[in-house]
């Protein structure tokens, strides 16, 4: 189709969500009678979906080594080897699956770069589950939390929403000495088994932390942990005692900030890297915050926020 064809403009207007009913009917009538125009429309829609799901790391900010994966099959033959998961990812281009917070998005095969597994800015996903460690890979879960816009002088780092950690517990959690709010997300790496099997796979996790100005607490800390797990049993059924994650892990890494600064305008970043043992099948991301000084057990927190969680899979040779 000629780039100057006015139908392109109608397509752009429709997919931009700003077509009037008359323009919609006009485009509809044209498309019903023109297979080439329908093909053009589908191309435009696919491109729009892919662009909307491009994490920044894929657009010029690779977080890890860009050494190509030597074991990656040639792209041209990749379709012949599609696993169900990869097939879903391929189909996902049409479906618009490549949203940063969607579980099926991260299995998109990218041949030669560090691979963005997750970029979560809490803009479009469902509210996190308040049920401890989630048993499914598509959700955040943990203690009681909510998605909020700007509040207490803290503006979301990206977009218009961020995660507020509301309590150090959730309904049904046995009373314990929990003074920290913990959130988790499971990431399924089984589609990347071939990359991980060589022992050179690294993952990098980062998250931004902040706390508000008018909360009850004077300050807060921040914590991230990344667990590499050999099977789903290592994270399922951990509602009452999530500390068992470390017992089932084949590798883990943790980093914390003892005390965040008192500037709600600035987000503070925690970042860790972990070399994945060959048997890794799942990752569990853990984010935690607690007010300082700690509040009494069961108290509701005020003004603890997380945003912009990124997870990237890359490759780095082991030290000699």
């Amino acid at each position, binding site marked *: 189709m000629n780039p100057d064809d006015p139908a392109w403009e109608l397509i752009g207007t429709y997919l931009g969500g700003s077509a009037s009913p008359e323009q919609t009917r006009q485009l509809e009538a044209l498309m019903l009678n023109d297979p080439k125009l329908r093909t053009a429309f589908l191309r435009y829609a696919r*491109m*729009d979906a892919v662009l909307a799901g491009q994490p920044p790391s894929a657009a010029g900010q690779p977080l890890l080594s860009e050494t190509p994966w030597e074991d990656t099959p040639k792209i041209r033959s990749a379709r012949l080897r599609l696993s169900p998961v990869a097939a879903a990812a391929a*189909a*996902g281009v049409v479906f618009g*699956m490549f*949203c940063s917070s969607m579980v099926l998005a991260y299995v*998109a095969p990218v041949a030669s770069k560090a691979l963005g597994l997750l970029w979560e800015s809490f803009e479009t996903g469902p509210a996190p589950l308040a049920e401890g460690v989630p048993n499914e890979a598509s959700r955040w879960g943990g203690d009681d939390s909510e998605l909020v816009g700007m509040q207490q002088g803290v503006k979301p780092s990206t977009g218009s929403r961020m995660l507020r950690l509301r309590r150090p517990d959730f309904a049904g959690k046995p009373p314990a000495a929990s003074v920290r709010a913990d959130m988790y997300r499971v990431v399924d790496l089984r589609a990347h088994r071939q990359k991980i099997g060589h022992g050179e796979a690294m993952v990098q996790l980062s998250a931004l932390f902040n706390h508000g100005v008018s909360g009850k607490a004077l300050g807060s800390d921040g914590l991230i942990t990344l667990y590499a797990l050999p099977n789903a049993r290592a994270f399922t059924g951990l509602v009452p005692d999530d500390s068992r994650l470390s017992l089932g892990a084949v590798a883990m890494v943790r980093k914390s900030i003892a005390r965040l600064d008192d500037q709600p305008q600035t987000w503070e970043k925690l970042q860790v890297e972990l070399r994945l043992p060959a048997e890794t099948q799942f990752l569990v991301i853990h984010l935690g915050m607690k007010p300082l000084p700690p509040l009494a057990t069961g108290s509701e927190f005020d003004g603890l926020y997380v945003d912009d969680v990124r997870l990237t899979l890359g490759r780095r040779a082991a030290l000699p």
Partner: protein
Amino acid sequence: MRSLVPTLEDSREVMQEVAVVLWRKFEDISKAEDFRRWAFGVARLKALDFHRKRGRDRHCFGTELLELLASEAEQADTDYDLERQALEECLEKLPNPQRALVEAAYAPGVRMDALAKQSGRTAMSLYKTLHRIRITLIQCTQKTLSMEGAR
């Protein structure tokens, strides 16, 4: 899904529902082609359900065209991996200001009017510029794919 639901935000919402269904079931389906067909089916049903719930919104296509699009998307012999890779290559070829504009426009939660103000344009001018860039990207992607095919 993007082709069946009029706005990006709506398609994300519907896609969340699709992803939940796919995630729960995909281990039960062993053949890639079966999974693909089933995934398309779920997406189609969810998209039609979205339109049904919304009533006959005059800003959306009618069922006949939606069914036609869903069917053609399913049957298309498109190698999505290759197409995506070609698009990435084309993005890299864009002049820096254009690429930066695309990245800014597709950042989560961005508002076009705010972006237009920030870049010193009117919203209409921004839409037109982005539209031209998208057309450039589509043309470039198709050219790249046809060159790949000729090799």
